[in-house]
């Protein structure tokens, strides 16, 4: 091996904050913007993505010695498509209302760059244990990002959180926050805040040395 590959623990921790898929790598933006108008759809989407990500990581890691370089992307997408079909049928069978509300965004998990990039970067090179740790870490990071955006949008846009009223009754709901423009504005501002915090931290680390 030419370069040292990260261990399972490093992969797991990296996924949550240092290499957060949304705030650091800007991957998988489509569901991040589309389903975060409330906590419930956001968490359903995070669960479905986690299932697909971890399963695809396991399978790709198991077949990594059989992969041909020029066909690997196709194999990745077909693996992911299989698991997305399973997740989609499962949601349609058990939480039909939510599956209707998420609509085309469940099948669109197939083209979520996050999953393909994890297959390419981690699980096609390392063993099953590391691939599972990586999948769980990245899925947690993704869920955290979805939850943060959905919290801002649901509280400002409809005054509720997980469907429970949190703002006082006189709160005028900011309708724009649950509509498409609110998604772009919220994510843009949160990205700015994340960037600002990490800059502050690196400056402080520099000055304390």
């Amino acid at each position, binding site marked *: 091996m030419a370069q040292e590959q990260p261990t399972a623990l490093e992969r797991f921790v990296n996924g949550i904050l240092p290499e957060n898929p949304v705030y650091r790598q*800007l*991957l998988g*933006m*489509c569901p991040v*913007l*589309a389903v975060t108008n409330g906590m419930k759809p956001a968490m359903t989407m995070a669960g479905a993505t986690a299932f697909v990500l971890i399963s695809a990581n396991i399978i790709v890691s198991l077949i990594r010695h059989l992969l041909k370089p020029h066909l690997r*992307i*196709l194999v990745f*997408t*077909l693996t992911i*498509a*299989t698991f*997305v*079909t399973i997740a*989609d*049928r499962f949601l349609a069978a058990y939480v039909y209302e939510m599956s209707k509300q998420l609509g*085309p965004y469940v*099948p*669109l998990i*197939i*083209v979520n*760059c996050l999953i*393909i990039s994890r297959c390419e970067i981690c699980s096609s090179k390392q063993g099953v244990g590391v691939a599972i740790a990586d999948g769980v870490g990245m899925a947690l990071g993704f869920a955290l990002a979805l939850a943060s955006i959905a919290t801002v949008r649901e509280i400002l846009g409809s005054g509720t959180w997980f469907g429970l009223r949190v703002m006082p009754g006189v709160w005028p709901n900011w309708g*724009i926050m649950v*509509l*498409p*423009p*609110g*998604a*772009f*504005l919220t*994510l*843009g*501002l949160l*990205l*700015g*805040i994340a*960037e*600002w915090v990490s*800059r502050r931290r690196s400056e402080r680390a520099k000055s304390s040395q």
Partner: protein
Amino acid sequence: METFTGLILIFIGAALINNFVLHYFVGICPFLGVSRRTSTAFGMGCAVTFVISIAALLSWTLTHFVLRPEAPLPRWVWEIAGGNPATHVDLSVLSYIVYIFVIASSVQFVEMYVRKFFPPLYKSFGVYLPLITTNCAILFACLEIMKHLQDPTNLWGLHEAITLAVGGGVGFTIAISLMAGIREDLDLCDVPGPLRGAGIALIVAGIMAMAFMGFTGVDKGIQSALGIGF
């Protein structure tokens, strides 16, 4: 006349009112990644429009003849094989796998074609051409077409599917070209440090999405102007 109006409404709906990028959020990755220069952005838009039309043509054909519930081909195979004619034949569980396969192979085809016949264009696309495979916009168009082929009261024909795809592609091109124009000017502005790059691009996109919300209701206006009911 009736059909033609329907097609215009589908086109305007896909390109402006429910713009793929600014209303459905599909195709955000190239929208943020390739929108630094107007010329590349326009090229990317054209490539996506082209691939989306080919994918729509293929996926409509496959869905109509093979994948939708009670499609003719599996029904025929089932009866040849001696199955019970009363059984409900439905292959739609396979549709996601088939679509992603169709998209991946049409992108491969377009890549080979462009490399052979337009080498300069191929160079300027660089890594972004293969990335169209993971462009949500194309799969999204296929899924919309599938949705309209499963509703037996309003089955879509090939012309409607292609119109939706081209409209979506044009809408994507409009959005990404506008974005690239704004970002070229943003380079000269004094943007607060942490917002530089993706942050300010997303805020600009938010304001553009608000502007595009102004198109809401245009379809009703066209319908009443052309004098069909509602």
